């Protein structure tokens, strides 16, 4: 799996197996090896949690069969680990019948979108596009990628010390960035400031 390219993970039990037109078109758009399909929720969730390093957009169904986790449960479990995976809910339920508390979960935990399974697949794919683009430009995602490219040794070395004396390794920072904690967000902000600083000075050089 190429760490640079975005993974599309489809966890849905309402598709026509692996040849559903949605999957076919997703593969054309994002690359054969970049689209994963799981017709049941538990294996799908396992895969996502085992591959947090990838840039990932997840298309997630709401209802699964008895004995499997529901789409909302899967979504919550992903969010417990990272904010950097975009999740698009695709449902066959009438949106009016969704429970308020589930909708609140989606909004508060930043679900990217919710769409009906009966919509044109073009519409669904354009949502995936948007989400993939966000991943490209979101600083936290970029940072995540950068950290992942360091060797395991590098990632385990203590890297930053905050003014209260806490030390963080790159691995720790990765977790903080995914959780969007204070220090995670501070690092994110600093990178942006750095980028702006470099750009402004480039500009000066060009102008001067």
């Amino acid at each position, binding site marked *: 799996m190429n760490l640079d390219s975005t993974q599309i993970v489809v966890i849905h039990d309402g598709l026509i197996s692996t040849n559903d*037109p949605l999957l076919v078109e997703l593969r054309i758009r994002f690359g054969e090896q970049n689209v994963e399909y799981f017709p049941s929720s538990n294996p799908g969730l396992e895969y996502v949690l085992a591959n947090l390093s990838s840039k990932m957009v997840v298309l997630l169904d709401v209802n699964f069969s008895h004995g499997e986790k529901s789409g909302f449960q899967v979504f919550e479990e992903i969010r417990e680990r990272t904010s950097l995976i975009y999740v698009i809910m695709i449902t066959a339920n009438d949106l009016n019948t969704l429970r308020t508390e589930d909708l609140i979960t989606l909004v508060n935990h930043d679900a990217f979108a919710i769409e009906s399974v009966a919509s*044109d697949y073009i519409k669904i794919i354009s949502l995936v596009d948007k989400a993939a683009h966000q991943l490209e430009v979101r600083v936290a995602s970029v940072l995540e990628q950068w950290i992942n490219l360091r060797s395991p040794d590098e990632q385990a070395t203590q890297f930053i010390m905050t003014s209260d004396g806490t030390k963080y390794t790159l691995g720790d920072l990765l977790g903080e960035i995914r959780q969007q904690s204070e220090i995670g967000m501070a690092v994110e902000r600093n990178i942006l400031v750095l980028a702006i600083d470099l750009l402004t000075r480039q500009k000066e050089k060009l102008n001067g």
Partner: protein
Amino acid sequence: MYELVKNCYDANATDVYVDFKDASLDPINGTITISDNGTGMSFSDIRDKWMVVGTNSKRTKLYSDPPFDRKFVGEKGIGRFAVDKLGERLLIRTKTKGERRRLNVTIKWDEYETKANAPKPMLFTEMANEFFYEPAPADEHGTTLVISRLSENWSNFDLDRLYIELSKIVSPFYPVDPPFDIFLNSNTDLEYRNTAVKADPVKYYSHYGELSFDLSTGKQQVLKLNQSNGKIQTDWIDIQSFGPIKMRVYYFNESAKKRYRTAYKNDESRIDGIKIYRDGIITTPFAEYEGDPNKKRDILGIDKRRWRGAFDKVGTREIIGVVDISKQQNPNIIDATNRQDFIDNSEYRRLKEFIIEQIDVLGELKDYERKVKRSAVEKELQKASDEVKQFSTEIRSLEKQIVREHPQLKGVLTPLVDQASTLGKTISDSISEQKKFEKDVVRKEKIYLSLMSLQDYAANISHAVRTSLGKIKRSAEFFVNNFPNPTFDDLFKEYALFIYGEMNVLLKVTDFMLSYASSELDFEDVDIKELIESIFLSEYRTVLEAENISVELEIRDTFIINTNKRFFHDIFGNLISNSIKALRNTPNKVIKCSGLLGSDAFDLYFSDNGYGITKGDEEWIFGLYNTRTADKGGAGIGLYIVEKRIEALRGSIEVAESEFKPIGATFKITFPFDRD
């Protein structure tokens, strides 16, 4: 209109006059006047409260001023809108007690519309309204609304409807104090000449029950049926958690309903179930007007539970009832702020149960009457039999007498006598057959049909259909976007086949769902063993023979159930189809079906020696569209239907250890008996 009258109640009025003038033929020139003697409004009340849209409809207090202490029934912030709907112009004449002037405010809704649609629209609150004061006696108080340029005409029928709805505001049996009297007047409809709006006395009912309570002993009355004479009587229990209540309920059996229909010209909407009043006034969940009887909300859940035991339970279209509670005695029955229901606490749940328990007594009555009818028939038969026997005996003795004296008559009389005694014997035989049928050694059990609730049904159908449609749509969309393109030829073929197949599946699914909607679900007495045998040995015989499948049936005991045959056909049909697929590659194919009768349930085991069920799939296989045999044409609905049918009969199905271990599969189906 209903909302406006409720507002008068909230304003502590004791009298409300509703007057319709020229409203029937010429609404643009007609007026409606609502006049009350309540507290009245001040200028700031009108400007800051009455005119302002209530974004938060919570009141700051729940009860009106003493000594009335009325729990507010009207919805806050609605007055304005109610009036707007009725007519284009409004004149408010109002005065509070002690003021020396009466305030008159004119509001012209039509002009506001124009101004609101102007290029630079004005806000409603910015518009200057016309108003003036006139002198008035200090102790006058109240509000009059004069609505003109009416938006619709009011026919006599409309006024009748209004009268009925308004009559429901005040409890018919336990009236409110201080009183709240409504008078309806129309200059075009002769029936309404300042006529007091009162609930009609309930007529034509077949049975009646009334409950009260005794605080000194702490006891509450309940209804019970006297099984020996079929009369409804009362008994005493402790006052319940929701507090003491009074209740009156009128039951309309079939003949009572017929009489009612004749008297009220087929308008059965007045038989509308139970309503709850508090301190003489209707409670908010029951205070919403809904004209369409099919849309009336069944707040107490009376009809909902009816599905579960269809025949003897009494529903809202068969009773008129009033439950009377009071703020003081029943403080935990609280109107929910969404106005649709009461707050769901344990006291309210118990109250609902209690009400249903009383209604169930009427259900017992229904059953009693049915039994009485049946035994009446028996009695008739018995009487006929006795009479025939008597007739035979007398004829014989008569014959002997006559033949002694006139031997030539023997040829004529004897056949007649023989015929009479054959007839007598036939009747006796059929009577004892009927009795035998009743006391049959074979157990006759009833399996009640429990239909899934309408909500589940709707949710099921919409989810299934939407999923199916999504698949079909995407396949078609792919064509639209990509055809022609040789790279995708294989996919095009696949999708075309798929669309066809899925349409068929969709048809099956909707047929299945619609079978629940059909109002005629035929019930008949069915012998289980015979039924299963006929399914295997006649209906599916050809198919099973063609597949070389041998069948082993071991239904040791049998029993008769009163149920829907088609459901059983669906169950076994689908199980057999599944087995056929599973047995495709098995050399010696066997399907086995065995049944055991227990004291509480009937257990059926359905097995085949095919390739079995993958470990871990035991629950998954019952999900809609879940199939491991898509390549063999499996659509994943067979077992879904099987499970749903079995559940509808209050049974259950699960995967058991295979009788043909280590291969094959066994399903265990259990039908518990209804012990009522």
